[in-house]
């Protein structure tokens, strides 16, 4: 992870510099750098998985590392698919921050014996989170671009951001991909936990905040698909949804709740 993290950090510096219209001192193509770092990361995860004999989601360090891995994978795909040259700057900054937190977090195995349900829950949520991070990045870029255009400030950051139409489409697609993963992940996690703890589990902090976050995304999906919502309102909903997601992940992984205990040894 250290080598991969170095690559991610370097790519982040370059992507942010490109976003601000600066030329980095030692320019290496950001995409090549990112692909190399991601391959190293993948190799590390595979080796760890083989050594453990199960998916490498063993603790906070491993969970965050997997989130970063998924986010970079989706970034590499989305950047090419939607031609979003500005996307790496927006995704890599929080992803690298998460990578640094992962590096500082203890490597010890905490999530031990959650069983197949727990593992499935973790993997689905991580993949959903990666896609919804794209929804969030699209929302942030939309808000910035929209403000710049309303001011008529097309010369600065606006020039490096994609058109509003592209950002709106990308955000919606990311939501459509991420929401089913999130839903399945939450259902699987809730069922697994309810089996262990009974219906009382549902009033624990993790399921409560997760349900609230899910409701925001469910509302966004229904408004976008059903009522034809888009543009600025949808962008603000993407920001709200991701804020809920950050709270949920923090409560789930950082507080000493039954969620951690459930996954614990």
């Amino acid at each position, binding site marked *: 992870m250290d080598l991969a993290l170095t690559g991610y950090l370097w790519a982040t510096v370059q992507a942010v510099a490109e976003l601000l*219209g600066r*030329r980095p001192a030692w320019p290496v193509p950001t995409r090549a750098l990112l692909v190399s770092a991601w391959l190293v990361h993948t190799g590390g995860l595979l080796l760890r998985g083989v050594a453990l004999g199960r998916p490498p989601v063993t603790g906070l360090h491993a969970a965050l590392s997997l989130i970063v891995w998924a986010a970079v994978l989706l970034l590499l795909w989305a950047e090419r698919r939607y031609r979003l040259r500005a996307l790496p700057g927006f995704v890599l900054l929080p992803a690298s921050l998460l990578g640094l937190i992962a590096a500082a977090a203890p490597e010890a195995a905490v999530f031990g014996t959650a069983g197949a349900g727990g593992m499935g829950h973790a993997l689905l949520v991580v993949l959903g989170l990666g896609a919804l991070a794209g929804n969030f990045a699209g929302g942030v870029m939309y808000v910035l*671009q929209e403000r710049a*255009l*309303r001011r*008529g*400030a*097309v*010369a*600065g950051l*606006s*020039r490096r951001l*994609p*058109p*509003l*139409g*592209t950002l709106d489409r990308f955000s919606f697609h990311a939501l459509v991909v991420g929401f089913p993963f999130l839903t399945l992940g939450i259902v699987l996690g809730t069922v697994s936990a309810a089996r262990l703890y009974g219906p009382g589990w549902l009033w624990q902090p993790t399921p409560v905040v997760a349900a609230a976050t899910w409701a925001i995304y469910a509302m966004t999906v229904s408004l976008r698909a059903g009522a*034809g*919502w*888009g*543009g*600025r*309102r949808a962008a603000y909903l993407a920001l709200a949804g991701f804020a809920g997601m950050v709270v949920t992940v923090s409560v789930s992984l950082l507080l000493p709740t039954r969620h951690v205990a459930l996954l614990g040894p």
Partner: protein
Amino acid sequence: MTPALLVLGLNHERAPLAVRERLAIPDGRLPAALAELRGEAGLGEALLLATCNRVEVWGVERAADAAGAVTRWLASRGGAPPESLADVLYRHRGPEAVGHMAAVAAGLDSMVVGEPQILGQVKAAHAAAAAAGTVGPVLGDAVTQALRIARRVRTETDVGRGAVSVSYAAVELARKIFGDLQERTVVLIGAGEMGGLAARHLADLGVSRLVITSRTVERAEAIARETGGKAVPFEEYPRHAAAADILICAAAAPHVLVTAGQVAGWVAARPRPLFCIDLGVPRNVDRGVGRLADVYLYDVDDLEAVVEANRRAREREVARARQLIAEAVARLARTAAARTAAPTIRSLRAKLEEIRQAEVERTVARLAGRVGDRAPEVRAAVEAMSIALVSKILHGPIEQLKAAQAAPGGARLRALVRELFGLDGEDEEDPPREEPPP
């Protein structure tokens, strides 16, 4: 003498139009003018760049006072004494000339910074000079390098980005909102000059549907014919405007034609934004329209402000562009200088190798009687010792020559080495010209 690149000319910043127009060269006169530059003006190669904002001679000096001769040639064309041009003419030589050519081709010296036409004008001037047979290897290479640097400047900096006319600013904003414009519907209310221009730009970008309406039906029909759009009666404009992605209002109406209430109704029924351009004076669109969600309203002043911001952004990029040119020119100069030092180093090595071999033969012959059957061993030792000696002696001077090749004293050092070691051979470089004695 070393063929030196020369740029001599004047532009809109240095000379008023009254001077520039006297020096203008009609296309038909160009071959004759180029021939004169090669003849009486003492240039070995010549190219003329004459646009409305500049007249420049790019060439390779053949005679010692080629710059003076070109100045006199220009003055004679303008019907003025050469001294009168002294204050307005600029001169660039050598690598600096390539830098100037690149700056001109990139549009850094243009009246509107970064305008793209100048790149085509430089290419056309190059083609015309090549057709007239006045471009040789030195000037040809310099122009190629300058165009390459100029293209890099335009790609790597924002010096040519951002619309600098009101009608293009409208198109730029439309692209920032929608991205691809091909599936968009444009409705033009009023068929004035500026509205028509914006509609034509949008039609060039391939918008799928263009509807034009005006109280003057003939004008609407004329624009419709030109752009492949459809002219509709003026009274029907609200119905068509409701379906527009891009609404251009340019009617000479004394009152507001489009109200916030109307637009709120239009956009509520659809999931896509509306880009509204109000080119009317007085304004055709209620200002409240701009406060609606997913509606973007710009009037003439807003578009002028966009143009002004783009101009300032381009000007801010000029320093970065010039830095890029300076770096590229310095790299070219280093490469050229490396080629300049190589013959001297080669001659120096050959000369010392010749001396070494002669001395080895002489020493071995002298020792032949005394060493008996150890002759091969002694020869090997003498060879090794002489090679090491020559190599150590040469190391310092060669490193000095390499280090100084791009420095100001490089040519003088090379001349000194050639003189000291008597290196007057076939591959001798030309005597240094870029450093006249103080």
